[in-house]
């Protein structure tokens, strides 16, 4: 039964913060205190330099008992910053923490009206008046505790996702690692060397991939995607689509009673397959069959049938023989998982740099992207590590690297942000060609070299010392000499102040990065916001960089914004750490902003039931009539039902209609008249 009773004789304490000069610089705080004292229901008003400080909070707790307060109002910064702090102070003073209301007079006042003290003070008075009006009507509410399913889900098994999975798995948490590709490893497995240490990327990654595979707490779900998400922190119900792979593992075979069967990665199927397709792992520069693995080190070592191109000739089934690993009739399967917390690590892809037509990617043979170059220079790549010009297979001697290819671009075609790791990998590329091709000269066309990481500037120094040529100027365009297929790169050498026309054998575009295709779908499934540039939005850029505004969902790696490997791994470890907190605690507290039914007003029309996005409302039979009933654990407190109910029968706790109307009235009627 909902309690709609409110305080009859409210006594509100008002605490106004100077925030140093942040507020006091633009708002007449003393005047505001005097004004607050004149407001109805205000029993006490004061100001303090920093109300959030320990002595500041003590003023609140002391005032509550001293002045027998029934509610508190702090006029300070945004409630999104310090609401929990002041709720705790209110609670320590002996009041229910939900009897606290905050007036935002910093972010939405003093900071945005810095040079209009009079108007800012007026606005602050209105804000305090509105907050007092609401605080006068606030009720006691109890925080609800719900148990947490001790299992984590990680979406994306690149280096960030793998690291997070290993951390959680090693902490004893059941972890589901979902990867849309047939193998784990992500972008890092496509790279040849890593900067600035020049470690072989595969060499340091493969042991990690094997660890993930072997970890008893990690359940690897490759070639799978998140299909649907329901529930909330501690209790997500996630549906995974296991895409039809056409091949069963040895474990699956054993379960089916096929002794010694299942795919052992022998590869007998591949040569017989008549279908040839480009291998996306090699950026299309190497063929694969319709039944394929990306590369020899895949984890799990399982072949995959590409049903989009398979002609179902059955030759592979024949070649596989008694192992009976191939099933060309396989269908997608759906798996339902109970999950406590989620880490999203969907990574990135290259911006389609052909959109910047002035650089001739996909027009000129010898213009390649940096990822293509990674494969070209990688010993396990399509050329066995021999860098060659795509046009004629010759060794290039002069190679240009175009930095900021699509980054720092406000035209709407490219990306406005810095992609952050292109400078460094281009330096690495420069090093690699100097090392691999005797007499070769790399030309780096750059605007700034951003070598910000540990040992990065030193790496830049080293590459310059090795003879790389740096031309400070953004490449304006690239033209091909049709006879030689050489490229003319045009820019200004801004340091010499003269135009440049350099004839090069090959050009590598350090293309901007953008969120992975499909990341947006994942993002929306979990209710995570995105920033202006499309990357997933962290809860706070500095103080909560792994969290999101959806409780229980965390971010790791480049999906949150461009990062190099060390940063991605560090964030993954951070995400794993925060994601494990609710799992270890075993329960979470939900803010009690639930909808409640005022039964005497409910007509049982049921219109609210369909409005609820969480299926938290239902109609029940009670004392001979139909009534709406709320399942509190499912209700997230959005209030969509309460905004609609034609009979006003829904009571939104903490955002109840009388409370909001009081705010509106206080603003418009409680002014200076």
């Amino acid at each position, binding site marked *: 039964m909902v309690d709609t009773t409110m305080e009859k004789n409210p006594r509100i304490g008002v605490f106004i913060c100077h925030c140093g000069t942040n507020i006091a610089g633009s708002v007449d705080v003393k005047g505001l205190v005097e004004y607050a004292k004149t407001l109805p229901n205000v029993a006490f008003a004061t100001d303090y330099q920093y109300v959030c400080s320990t002595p500041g909070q003590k003023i609140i707790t002391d005032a509550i008992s001293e002045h027998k307060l029934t509610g508190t109002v702090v006029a300070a910064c945004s409630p999104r910053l310090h609401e929990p702090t002041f709720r705790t102070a209110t609670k320590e003073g002996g009041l229910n923490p939900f009897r606290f209301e905050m007036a935002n007079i910093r972010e939405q006042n003093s900071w945005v009206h810095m040079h209009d003290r009079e108007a800012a003070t007026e606005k602050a008075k209105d804000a305090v008046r509105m907050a007092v009006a609401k605080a006068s009507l606030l009720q006691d509410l109890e925080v609800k505790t719900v148990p947490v399913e001790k299992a984590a889900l990680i979406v994306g098994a690149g280096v960030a996702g793998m690291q997070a999975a290993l951390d959680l798995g090693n902490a004893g948490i059941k972890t589901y690692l979902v990867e849309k590709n047939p193998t784990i490893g992500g972008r890092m497995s496509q790279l040849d060397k890593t900067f600035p240490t020049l470690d072989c990327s595969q060499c340091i990654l493969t042991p990690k991939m094997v660890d993930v595979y072997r970890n008893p707490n990690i359940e690897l779900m490759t070639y799978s995607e998140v299909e649907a998400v329901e529930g909330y922190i501690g209790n997500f119900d996630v549906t995974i689509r296991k895409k039809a792979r056409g091949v069963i593992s040895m474990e699956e075979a054993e379960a089916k009673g096929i002794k010694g069967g299942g795919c052992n990665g022998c590869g007998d199927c591949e040569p017989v397959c008549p279908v040839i397709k480009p291998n996306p792992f090699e950026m299309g520069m190497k063929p694969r069959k319709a039944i394929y693995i990306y590369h020899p080190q895949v984890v799990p070592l399982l072949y995959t049938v590409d049903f989009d191109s398979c002609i179902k000739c059955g030759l592979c089934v024949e070649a596989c023989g008694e192992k009976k690993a191939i099933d060309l009739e396989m269908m997608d399967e759906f798996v339902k998982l109970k999950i406590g917390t989620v880490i999203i690590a969907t990574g990135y892809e290259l911006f389609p740099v052909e959109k910047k037509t002035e650089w001739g990617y996909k027009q000129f043979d010898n213009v390649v992207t940096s990822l293509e170059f990674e494969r070209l220079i990688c010993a396990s790549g399509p050329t066995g590590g021999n860098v060659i010009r795509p046009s004629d297979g010759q060794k290039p001697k002069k190679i240009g690297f175009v930095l900021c290819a699509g980054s720092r671009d406000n035209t709407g075609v490219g990306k406005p942000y810095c992609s952050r790791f292109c400078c460094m990998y281009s330096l690495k590329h420069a090093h690699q060609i100097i090392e691999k091709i005797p007499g070769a000269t790399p030309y780096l066309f750059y605007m700034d070299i951003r070598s910000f990481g540990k040992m990065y500037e030193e790496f830049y120094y080293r590459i310059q010392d090795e003879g790389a040529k740096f031309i400070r100027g953004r490449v304006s365009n690239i033209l091909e000499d049709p006879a030689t297929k050489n490229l003319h790169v045009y820019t200004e050498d801004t340091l010499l102040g003269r135009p440049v026309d*350099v004839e090069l054998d090959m050009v590598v575009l350090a293309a901007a990065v953008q969120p992975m295709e499909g990341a947006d779908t994942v993002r929306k499934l979990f209710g995570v916001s995105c920033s202006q540039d499309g990357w997933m939005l962290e809860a706070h850029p500095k103080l909560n960089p792994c969290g999101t505004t959806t409780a229980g969902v965390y971010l790791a790696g480049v999906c949150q914004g461009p990062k190099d490997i060390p940063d991605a791994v560090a964030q993954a470890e951070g995400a794993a750490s925060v994601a494990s907190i609710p799992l270890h605690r075993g329960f979470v507290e939900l803010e009690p902003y639930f909808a409640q039914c005022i039964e005497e007003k409910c007509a049982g029309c049921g219109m609210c039931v369909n409005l609820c996005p969480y299926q938290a409302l239902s109609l029940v039979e009670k004392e001979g009539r139909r009534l709406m009933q709320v399942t509190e654990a499912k209700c997230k407190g959005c209030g969509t039902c309460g905004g609609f109910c034609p009979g006003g029968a829904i009571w939104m706790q903490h955002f109840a209609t009388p409370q909001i109307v009081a705010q509106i009235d206080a603003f418009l009627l409680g002014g200076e008249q």
Partner: protein
Amino acid sequence: MAKAKGYSDPKMEEKLRDRYYYRTDSNPEFSKRIRDISQTVSHMCYQCGTCTGSCPSAPRSSYRIRLFMRRNVMGLEDEALTDPDLWLCTTCYSCTDRCPRDIAPTDVIMAMRNLAAERDIIPVNFLKTVQAIYTTGHGVPNNDVNRAARQRLGLEREPPTVHKYKQYLPGIQKILDHYGLKARADKIVAEAEKHA
């Protein structure tokens, strides 16, 4: 830099000169020779401009030491060696003291001057000093006014250098002749005076 366009008016020819940077302009060996002569990591310049900012000549001329460092890195030999600004460095070493890359730009300038001199591009005043040393052993030799003053101060009329001990002069001349410097100096100075 190359590519004469055939305008009869030299001013117009200069104005419409092709200013693209072509491979043909640049000499990669240039940078290496500069490094050898200057004994400094001249190729490591990252063009921050500290040198030009420290330079006493920069604010009162078009001389930009950073630009010479750039020409060095890009191998723009002709451009560097024929630029009259090359001779405006006072060799004060302020840039060298402040260079964050620990390069000695002053020594790079000296190396460039050496390479210019190889092409007989040397301002005449430098060569007149050479000639003076060849004939007297001193760049600023004694004169009669000074001899009188010396005497007045209780010093010998000729200082106890090669001025007094003339037997040392042939040795000095031998060193200069070893490099053929005197002959070159005479030739270049005569030519310059002919033009003047």
